[in-house]
Protein backbone atom coordinates (compact mmCIF):
# COMPACT_ATOMS: atom_id res chain seq x y z
CA UNK A 1 0.00 0.00 0.00
CA UNK A 2 2.85 2.42 0.88
CA UNK A 3 4.52 1.62 -2.46
CA UNK A 4 1.21 2.34 -4.24
CA UNK A 5 0.87 5.67 -2.46
CA UNK A 6 4.44 6.59 -3.30
CA UNK A 7 3.89 5.69 -6.94
CA UNK A 8 0.69 7.73 -7.04
CA UNK A 9 2.34 10.76 -5.43
CA UNK A 10 5.15 10.56 -7.97
CA UNK A 11 2.62 10.50 -10.82
CA UNK A 12 0.69 13.44 -9.37
CA UNK A 13 3.92 15.35 -8.89
CA UNK A 14 4.97 14.71 -12.50
CA UNK A 15 1.49 15.61 -13.72
CA UNK A 16 1.51 18.92 -11.86
CA UNK A 17 5.07 19.74 -12.91
CA UNK A 18 4.12 19.04 -16.53
CA UNK A 19 0.97 21.17 -16.31
CA UNK A 20 2.80 24.08 -14.72
CA UNK A 21 5.70 23.77 -17.15
CA UNK A 22 3.44 23.68 -20.21
CA UNK A 23 1.31 26.55 -18.94
CA UNK A 24 4.39 28.65 -18.14
CA UNK A 25 6.03 28.00 -21.53
CA UNK A 26 3.01 28.85 -23.64
CA UNK A 27 2.01 31.78 -21.45
CA UNK A 28 5.48 33.32 -21.85
CA UNK A 29 5.35 32.66 -25.61
CA UNK A 30 2.07 34.52 -25.97
CA UNK A 31 3.33 37.38 -23.77
CA UNK A 32 6.43 37.64 -25.96
CA UNK A 33 4.20 38.03 -29.01
CA UNK A 34 2.16 40.80 -27.41
CA UNK A 35 5.26 42.64 -26.17
CA UNK A 36 7.17 42.56 -29.45
CA UNK A 37 7.57 45.84 -31.31
CA UNK A 38 6.90 46.35 -34.97
CA UNK A 39 10.61 46.71 -35.76
CA UNK A 40 11.40 43.41 -34.03
CA UNK A 41 8.71 41.61 -36.02
CA UNK A 42 10.12 43.00 -39.26
CA UNK A 43 13.57 41.81 -38.28
CA UNK A 44 12.30 38.26 -37.94
CA UNK A 45 11.15 38.06 -41.55
CA UNK A 46 13.32 35.89 -43.76
CA UNK A 47 14.22 37.28 -47.17
CA UNK A 48 11.99 35.81 -49.85
CA UNK A 49 12.27 36.53 -53.57
CA UNK A 50 8.92 38.19 -54.16
CA UNK A 51 9.12 37.96 -57.94
CA UNK A 52 9.41 34.16 -57.79
CA UNK A 53 6.51 33.98 -55.34
CA UNK A 54 4.39 36.10 -57.64
CA UNK A 55 5.28 34.01 -60.69
CA UNK A 56 4.36 30.72 -58.94
CA UNK A 57 1.18 32.14 -57.39
CA UNK A 58 -0.10 33.80 -60.57
CA UNK A 59 0.36 30.50 -62.39
CA UNK A 60 -2.52 29.21 -60.27
CA UNK A 61 -4.63 32.29 -59.38
CA UNK A 62 -5.60 35.64 -60.88
CA UNK A 63 -5.07 39.07 -59.24
CA UNK A 64 -8.35 38.81 -57.35
CA UNK A 65 -7.19 35.57 -55.71
CA UNK A 66 -9.55 33.27 -57.62
CA UNK A 67 -8.32 29.99 -59.12
CA UNK A 68 -7.51 30.34 -62.81
CA UNK A 69 -9.59 28.24 -65.17
CA UNK A 70 -8.03 29.37 -68.44
CA UNK A 71 -5.87 27.10 -70.63
CA UNK A 72 -2.66 28.85 -69.59
CA UNK A 73 -3.17 28.06 -65.88
CA UNK A 74 -0.95 25.63 -63.92
CA UNK A 75 1.74 25.48 -66.60
CA UNK A 76 4.70 25.44 -64.24
CA UNK A 77 6.25 22.00 -63.75
CA UNK A 78 7.20 20.75 -60.26
CA UNK A 79 10.90 21.10 -61.13
CA UNK A 80 10.40 24.71 -62.16
CA UNK A 81 8.49 25.47 -58.95
CA UNK A 82 11.24 23.76 -56.98
CA UNK A 83 13.92 25.90 -58.67
CA UNK A 84 11.97 29.13 -58.28
CA UNK A 85 11.25 28.67 -54.59
CA UNK A 86 14.64 27.28 -53.54
CA UNK A 87 13.60 23.76 -52.55
CA UNK A 88 12.40 22.73 -49.13
CA UNK A 89 14.47 25.48 -47.52
CA UNK A 90 12.52 28.03 -49.51
CA UNK A 91 9.24 26.55 -48.34
CA UNK A 92 10.49 26.64 -44.75
CA UNK A 93 11.35 30.31 -45.15
CA UNK A 94 7.71 30.89 -46.14
CA UNK A 95 6.63 28.99 -43.05
CA UNK A 96 8.94 31.09 -40.89
CA UNK A 97 7.46 34.26 -42.35
CA UNK A 98 3.96 32.90 -41.85
CA UNK A 99 4.65 32.56 -38.12
CA UNK A 100 5.79 36.19 -38.10
CA UNK A 101 2.62 37.17 -39.98
CA UNK A 102 0.56 35.48 -37.26
CA UNK A 103 2.39 37.65 -34.71
CA UNK A 104 1.79 40.73 -36.84
CA UNK A 105 -1.93 39.98 -37.13
CA UNK A 106 -1.97 39.29 -33.36
CA UNK A 107 -0.33 42.70 -32.80
CA UNK A 108 -2.91 44.43 -35.01
CA UNK A 109 -5.80 42.65 -33.35
CA UNK A 110 -4.63 43.89 -29.97
CA UNK A 111 -4.21 47.56 -30.98
CA UNK A 112 -6.68 47.89 -33.86
CA UNK A 113 -9.96 46.08 -33.08
CA UNK A 114 -11.34 47.26 -36.43
CA UNK A 115 -8.74 44.98 -38.11
CA UNK A 116 -10.26 41.83 -36.54
CA UNK A 117 -11.75 40.30 -39.69
CA UNK A 118 -8.69 40.70 -41.91
CA UNK A 119 -6.33 39.69 -39.10
CA UNK A 120 -8.33 36.50 -38.56
CA UNK A 121 -8.20 35.75 -42.29
CA UNK A 122 -4.43 36.25 -42.27
CA UNK A 123 -4.03 34.01 -39.26
CA UNK A 124 -6.02 31.20 -40.90
CA UNK A 125 -3.98 31.45 -44.12
CA UNK A 126 -0.71 31.33 -42.18
CA UNK A 127 -1.91 28.28 -40.27
CA UNK A 128 -2.79 26.61 -43.58
CA UNK A 129 0.75 27.17 -44.81
CA UNK A 130 2.11 25.63 -41.62
CA UNK A 131 -0.03 22.57 -42.22
CA UNK A 132 1.03 22.21 -45.84
CA UNK A 133 4.72 22.48 -44.93
CA UNK A 134 4.25 19.78 -42.29
CA UNK A 135 2.74 17.53 -44.99
CA UNK A 136 5.78 18.17 -47.17
CA UNK A 137 8.12 17.25 -44.34
CA UNK A 138 6.19 14.00 -43.76
CA UNK A 139 6.40 13.28 -47.47
CA UNK A 140 10.16 13.88 -47.40
CA UNK A 141 10.56 11.39 -44.55
CA UNK A 142 8.57 8.72 -46.39
CA UNK A 143 10.36 9.36 -49.67
CA UNK A 144 7.30 10.74 -51.43
CA UNK A 145 8.43 14.36 -51.59
CA UNK A 146 8.62 14.52 -55.39
CA UNK A 147 4.99 13.43 -55.69
CA UNK A 148 3.67 15.68 -52.93
CA UNK A 149 5.77 18.74 -53.58
CA UNK A 150 4.01 20.14 -56.59
CA UNK A 151 0.51 20.32 -55.14
CA UNK A 152 1.37 21.18 -51.51
CA UNK A 153 4.14 23.61 -52.39
CA UNK A 154 2.14 25.53 -54.95
CA UNK A 155 -0.86 25.67 -52.60
CA UNK A 156 1.39 26.95 -49.83
CA UNK A 157 2.88 29.58 -52.11
CA UNK A 158 -0.52 30.71 -53.38
CA UNK A 159 -1.75 31.03 -49.80
CA UNK A 160 1.40 32.95 -48.85
CA UNK A 161 0.97 35.35 -51.78
CA UNK A 162 -2.70 36.04 -50.98
CA UNK A 163 -1.82 36.50 -47.33
CA UNK A 164 0.91 38.99 -47.99
CA UNK A 165 -1.41 41.01 -50.25
CA UNK A 166 -3.98 41.06 -47.44
CA UNK A 167 -1.38 42.03 -44.87
CA UNK A 168 -0.22 44.97 -46.95
CA UNK A 169 -3.86 45.99 -47.36
CA UNK A 170 -4.40 45.71 -43.61
CA UNK A 171 -1.46 47.90 -42.73
CA UNK A 172 -2.56 50.47 -45.29
CA UNK A 173 -5.71 51.01 -43.27
CA UNK A 174 -3.88 51.03 -39.94
CA UNK A 175 -0.58 52.39 -38.73
CA UNK A 176 0.88 53.76 -41.90
CA UNK A 177 4.39 54.50 -40.71
CA UNK A 178 5.01 50.75 -40.84
CA UNK A 179 3.69 50.29 -44.36
CA UNK A 180 6.86 51.23 -46.27
CA UNK A 181 9.05 48.90 -44.17
CA UNK A 182 6.64 45.97 -44.57
CA UNK A 183 6.49 46.40 -48.32
CA UNK A 184 10.30 46.30 -48.56
CA UNK A 185 10.54 43.11 -46.44
CA UNK A 186 7.88 41.22 -48.34
Amino acid at each position, binding site marked *: *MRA*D*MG*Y*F*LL*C*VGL*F*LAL*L*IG*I*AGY*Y*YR*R*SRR*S*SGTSWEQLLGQLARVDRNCI*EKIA*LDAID*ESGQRRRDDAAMELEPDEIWQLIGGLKGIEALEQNSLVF*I*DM*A*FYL*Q*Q*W*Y*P*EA*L*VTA*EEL*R*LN*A*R*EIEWQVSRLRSAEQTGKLAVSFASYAQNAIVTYYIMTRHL*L*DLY*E*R*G*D*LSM*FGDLQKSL
Partner: protein
Amino acid sequence: MHLTGLDLLFWAVGFVGHVILLLVLWTRQRAKTFPIFTALVGLNIVRTVALALIQQYGTRRGYFYTYWALAILDVALQLGVVYEMTSLVFRPLGKWASDVRRGILWWLAGSVSVAAGLTWLPTPPTRLWMQVVMIKGSFFSAALLSELFVGMITLSATAGLPWKTHVARISQALGIYSIFTVLIEAGSSYFGLRSDTRAYVELTRVRMGLYLVCVTYWIIMLWRDAPSGRVMTPRMRRQLAAINAGAALDLQELRSRREP
Protein backbone atom coordinates in the same frame (compact mmCIF):
# COMPACT_ATOMS: atom_id res chain seq x y z
CA MET B 1 -20.49 21.58 13.85
CA HIS B 2 -17.75 23.42 15.73
CA LEU B 3 -16.34 26.47 13.94
CA THR B 4 -13.25 28.30 15.10
CA GLY B 5 -12.76 32.05 14.87
CA LEU B 6 -10.60 31.57 11.78
CA ASP B 7 -13.31 29.50 10.05
CA LEU B 8 -15.84 32.25 10.70
CA LEU B 9 -13.41 34.89 9.49
CA PHE B 10 -12.82 33.04 6.21
CA TRP B 11 -16.56 32.59 5.83
CA ALA B 12 -17.34 36.27 6.40
CA VAL B 13 -14.49 37.59 4.24
CA GLY B 14 -15.49 35.21 1.46
CA PHE B 15 -19.07 36.48 1.57
CA VAL B 16 -18.03 40.14 1.51
CA GLY B 17 -15.59 39.45 -1.31
CA HIS B 18 -18.24 37.76 -3.43
CA VAL B 19 -20.72 40.59 -2.88
CA ILE B 20 -18.14 43.19 -3.93
CA LEU B 21 -17.18 41.08 -6.95
CA LEU B 22 -20.83 40.78 -8.00
CA LEU B 23 -21.25 44.54 -7.69
CA VAL B 24 -18.16 45.07 -9.84
CA LEU B 25 -19.51 42.68 -12.48
CA TRP B 26 -22.83 44.53 -12.62
CA THR B 27 -21.66 48.12 -12.41
CA ARG B 28 -18.78 47.70 -14.89
CA GLN B 29 -20.97 45.83 -17.40
CA ARG B 30 -18.91 42.65 -17.19
CA ALA B 31 -21.92 40.43 -16.38
CA LYS B 32 -23.13 40.63 -19.99
CA THR B 33 -19.81 39.30 -21.30
CA PHE B 34 -19.35 36.69 -18.56
CA PRO B 35 -22.84 35.45 -17.56
CA ILE B 36 -21.69 32.02 -16.38
CA PHE B 37 -18.87 33.44 -14.28
CA THR B 38 -21.36 35.91 -12.80
CA ALA B 39 -23.68 32.98 -12.01
CA LEU B 40 -20.82 31.21 -10.20
CA VAL B 41 -20.23 34.28 -8.04
CA GLY B 42 -23.97 34.56 -7.39
CA LEU B 43 -24.11 30.91 -6.39
CA ASN B 44 -21.37 31.46 -3.83
CA ILE B 45 -23.37 34.29 -2.24
CA VAL B 46 -26.58 32.25 -2.15
CA ARG B 47 -24.71 29.25 -0.74
CA THR B 48 -23.11 31.27 2.04
CA VAL B 49 -26.44 32.81 3.08
CA ALA B 50 -28.24 29.45 2.98
CA LEU B 51 -25.53 27.61 4.88
CA ALA B 52 -25.26 30.35 7.51
CA LEU B 53 -29.01 30.17 8.16
CA ILE B 54 -28.96 26.36 8.30
CA GLN B 55 -25.92 26.39 10.58
CA GLN B 56 -27.80 28.73 12.93
CA TYR B 57 -31.32 27.28 12.80
CA GLY B 58 -31.14 23.94 10.99
CA THR B 59 -29.67 20.50 11.50
CA ARG B 60 -26.29 19.04 10.67
CA ARG B 61 -27.90 16.80 8.09
CA GLY B 62 -29.55 19.82 6.45
CA TYR B 63 -26.20 21.61 6.27
CA PHE B 64 -24.56 18.53 4.80
CA TYR B 65 -27.14 18.00 2.02
CA THR B 66 -27.31 21.70 1.15
CA TYR B 67 -23.54 21.99 0.95
CA TRP B 68 -23.28 18.99 -1.37
CA ALA B 69 -26.18 19.89 -3.58
CA LEU B 70 -24.69 23.33 -4.16
CA ALA B 71 -21.19 21.82 -4.53
CA ILE B 72 -22.45 19.82 -7.53
CA LEU B 73 -23.81 23.01 -9.04
CA ASP B 74 -20.51 24.75 -8.29
CA VAL B 75 -18.49 22.17 -10.23
CA ALA B 76 -20.96 22.36 -13.13
CA LEU B 77 -20.63 26.14 -13.24
CA GLN B 78 -16.83 25.91 -13.18
CA LEU B 79 -17.02 23.68 -16.25
CA GLY B 80 -19.40 26.25 -17.69
CA VAL B 81 -16.82 29.00 -17.05
CA VAL B 82 -14.24 26.94 -18.95
CA TYR B 83 -16.67 26.75 -21.87
CA GLU B 84 -17.36 30.49 -21.61
CA MET B 85 -13.66 31.42 -21.70
CA THR B 86 -12.97 28.94 -24.50
CA SER B 87 -15.82 30.42 -26.49
CA LEU B 88 -14.47 33.96 -26.09
CA VAL B 89 -10.94 32.98 -27.13
CA PHE B 90 -11.60 30.54 -29.97
CA ARG B 91 -14.59 32.28 -31.58
CA PRO B 92 -13.09 35.64 -32.64
CA LEU B 93 -15.71 36.20 -35.36
CA GLY B 94 -18.65 34.58 -33.60
CA LYS B 95 -18.05 31.04 -34.85
CA TRP B 96 -15.40 28.49 -33.87
CA ALA B 97 -12.11 29.13 -35.68
CA SER B 98 -11.75 26.35 -38.26
CA ASP B 99 -8.09 25.62 -37.50
CA VAL B 100 -8.66 24.87 -33.81
CA ARG B 101 -11.77 22.66 -33.94
CA ARG B 102 -9.80 19.44 -34.19
CA GLY B 103 -7.36 20.69 -31.54
CA ILE B 104 -10.23 21.44 -29.16
CA LEU B 105 -11.62 17.90 -29.58
CA TRP B 106 -8.22 16.35 -28.91
CA TRP B 107 -7.77 18.64 -25.94
CA LEU B 108 -11.12 17.59 -24.45
CA ALA B 109 -10.57 13.89 -25.08
CA GLY B 110 -6.99 14.05 -23.82
CA SER B 111 -7.95 15.93 -20.66
CA VAL B 112 -10.66 13.41 -19.78
CA SER B 113 -8.34 10.46 -20.51
CA VAL B 114 -5.39 11.78 -18.51
CA ALA B 115 -7.61 12.75 -15.56
CA ALA B 116 -9.26 9.31 -15.65
CA GLY B 117 -5.92 7.52 -15.90
CA LEU B 118 -4.44 9.45 -13.01
CA THR B 119 -7.55 8.90 -10.90
CA TRP B 120 -7.52 5.15 -11.34
CA LEU B 121 -3.96 4.61 -10.17
CA PRO B 122 -4.01 3.60 -6.48
CA THR B 123 -6.85 2.66 -4.15
CA PRO B 124 -7.35 5.04 -1.21
CA PRO B 125 -7.24 3.52 2.30
CA THR B 126 -11.00 3.27 2.94
CA ARG B 127 -13.32 0.39 3.74
CA LEU B 128 -16.36 1.01 1.52
CA TRP B 129 -16.20 0.80 -2.28
CA MET B 130 -18.59 3.76 -2.50
CA GLN B 131 -16.05 5.88 -0.67
CA VAL B 132 -13.43 4.85 -3.20
CA VAL B 133 -15.73 6.03 -6.01
CA MET B 134 -16.34 9.33 -4.24
CA ILE B 135 -12.70 10.08 -3.54
CA LYS B 136 -11.68 9.19 -7.08
CA GLY B 137 -14.51 11.28 -8.55
CA SER B 138 -13.47 14.30 -6.55
CA PHE B 139 -9.87 13.98 -7.69
CA PHE B 140 -11.03 13.48 -11.28
CA SER B 141 -12.94 16.78 -11.31
CA ALA B 142 -9.95 18.69 -9.89
CA ALA B 143 -7.54 17.16 -12.42
CA LEU B 144 -9.93 17.75 -15.34
CA LEU B 145 -10.48 21.43 -14.54
CA SER B 146 -6.76 22.14 -14.23
CA GLU B 147 -6.02 20.35 -17.52
CA LEU B 148 -8.75 22.25 -19.34
CA PHE B 149 -7.30 25.61 -18.33
CA VAL B 150 -3.75 24.67 -19.26
CA GLY B 151 -5.00 23.27 -22.57
CA MET B 152 -6.68 26.57 -23.31
CA ILE B 153 -3.39 28.44 -22.84
CA THR B 154 -1.56 25.97 -25.09
CA LEU B 155 -4.07 25.95 -27.92
CA SER B 156 -4.45 29.72 -28.05
CA ALA B 157 -0.67 30.26 -28.09
CA THR B 158 -0.13 27.80 -30.95
CA ALA B 159 -3.08 29.18 -32.92
CA GLY B 160 -1.99 32.79 -32.40
CA LEU B 161 -5.28 33.88 -30.87
CA PRO B 162 -5.00 36.71 -28.34
CA TRP B 163 -6.91 36.76 -25.07
CA LYS B 164 -8.94 39.76 -24.13
CA THR B 165 -7.72 41.18 -20.83
CA HIS B 166 -10.63 40.16 -18.63
CA VAL B 167 -10.81 36.65 -20.11
CA ALA B 168 -7.14 36.18 -19.23
CA ARG B 169 -7.60 37.42 -15.67
CA ILE B 170 -10.55 35.15 -14.88
CA SER B 171 -8.88 32.12 -16.46
CA GLN B 172 -5.48 32.64 -14.82
CA ALA B 173 -6.86 32.78 -11.30
CA LEU B 174 -9.30 29.89 -11.74
CA GLY B 175 -6.60 27.83 -13.45
CA ILE B 176 -4.09 28.35 -10.64
CA TYR B 177 -6.77 27.54 -8.08
CA SER B 178 -7.65 24.31 -9.95
CA ILE B 179 -4.02 23.20 -10.08
CA PHE B 180 -3.67 23.80 -6.37
CA THR B 181 -6.79 21.78 -5.58
CA VAL B 182 -5.25 18.78 -7.37
CA LEU B 183 -2.41 18.93 -4.88
CA ILE B 184 -4.78 19.12 -1.95
CA GLU B 185 -6.97 16.33 -3.28
CA ALA B 186 -3.97 14.07 -3.66
CA GLY B 187 -2.75 14.89 -0.19
CA SER B 188 -5.99 14.76 1.73
CA SER B 189 -7.91 12.01 -0.06
CA TYR B 190 -5.22 9.51 -0.87
CA PHE B 191 -3.48 9.69 2.45
CA GLY B 192 -6.85 9.15 4.11
CA LEU B 193 -6.71 12.42 6.01
CA ARG B 194 -9.71 13.09 8.20
CA SER B 195 -11.30 16.44 8.82
CA ASP B 196 -10.17 16.38 12.46
CA THR B 197 -6.48 16.07 11.58
CA ARG B 198 -4.35 19.18 11.70
CA ALA B 199 -2.85 18.58 8.27
CA TYR B 200 -6.23 18.52 6.56
CA VAL B 201 -7.44 21.60 8.43
CA GLU B 202 -4.33 23.54 7.43
CA LEU B 203 -4.56 22.41 3.80
CA THR B 204 -8.20 23.51 3.66
CA ARG B 205 -7.33 26.91 5.12
CA VAL B 206 -4.54 27.37 2.59
CA ARG B 207 -7.03 26.55 -0.17
CA MET B 208 -9.51 29.09 1.20
CA GLY B 209 -6.78 31.68 1.54
CA LEU B 210 -5.74 31.13 -2.07
CA TYR B 211 -9.36 31.44 -3.16
CA LEU B 212 -9.70 34.77 -1.33
CA VAL B 213 -6.59 35.99 -3.16
CA CYS B 214 -8.28 34.99 -6.44
CA VAL B 215 -11.45 36.90 -5.50
CA THR B 216 -9.42 40.00 -4.64
CA TYR B 217 -7.56 39.70 -7.93
CA TRP B 218 -10.83 39.48 -9.86
CA ILE B 219 -12.28 42.50 -8.05
CA ILE B 220 -9.30 44.66 -8.99
CA MET B 221 -8.81 43.37 -12.53
CA LEU B 222 -12.48 43.34 -13.52
CA TRP B 223 -12.95 46.85 -12.14
CA ARG B 224 -10.18 48.18 -14.37
CA ASP B 225 -10.86 48.78 -18.04
CA ALA B 226 -9.03 46.81 -20.68
CA PRO B 227 -6.44 48.83 -22.69
CA SER B 228 -8.22 50.70 -25.46
CA GLY B 229 -7.34 50.39 -29.14
CA ARG B 230 -5.57 53.11 -31.10
CA VAL B 231 -7.48 55.54 -33.28
CA MET B 232 -6.35 56.85 -36.66
CA THR B 233 -5.59 60.57 -36.79
CA PRO B 234 -6.80 62.89 -39.62
CA ARG B 235 -3.21 62.88 -40.96
CA MET B 236 -3.24 59.09 -41.14
CA ARG B 237 -6.55 59.19 -42.99
CA ARG B 238 -5.04 61.56 -45.61
CA GLN B 239 -2.02 59.28 -46.00
CA LEU B 240 -4.39 56.36 -46.45
CA ALA B 241 -6.05 58.09 -49.40
CA ALA B 242 -2.63 58.63 -51.00
CA ILE B 243 -1.55 55.03 -50.44
CA ASN B 244 -4.80 53.69 -51.88
CA ALA B 245 -4.03 55.57 -55.04
CA GLY B 246 -0.52 54.05 -55.04
CA ALA B 247 -1.94 50.55 -54.53
CA ALA B 248 -4.21 51.03 -57.57
CA LEU B 249 -1.14 51.84 -59.66
CA ASP B 250 0.64 48.67 -58.34
CA LEU B 251 -2.32 46.55 -59.40
CA GLN B 252 -2.29 48.07 -62.86
CA GLU B 253 1.40 47.20 -63.14
CA LEU B 254 0.68 43.59 -62.11
CA ARG B 255 -1.92 43.32 -64.87
CA SER B 256 0.38 44.76 -67.49
CA ARG B 257 3.13 42.21 -66.60
CA ARG B 258 0.72 39.34 -67.12
CA GLU B 259 -0.19 40.43 -70.64
CA PRO B 260 1.90 38.79 -73.36
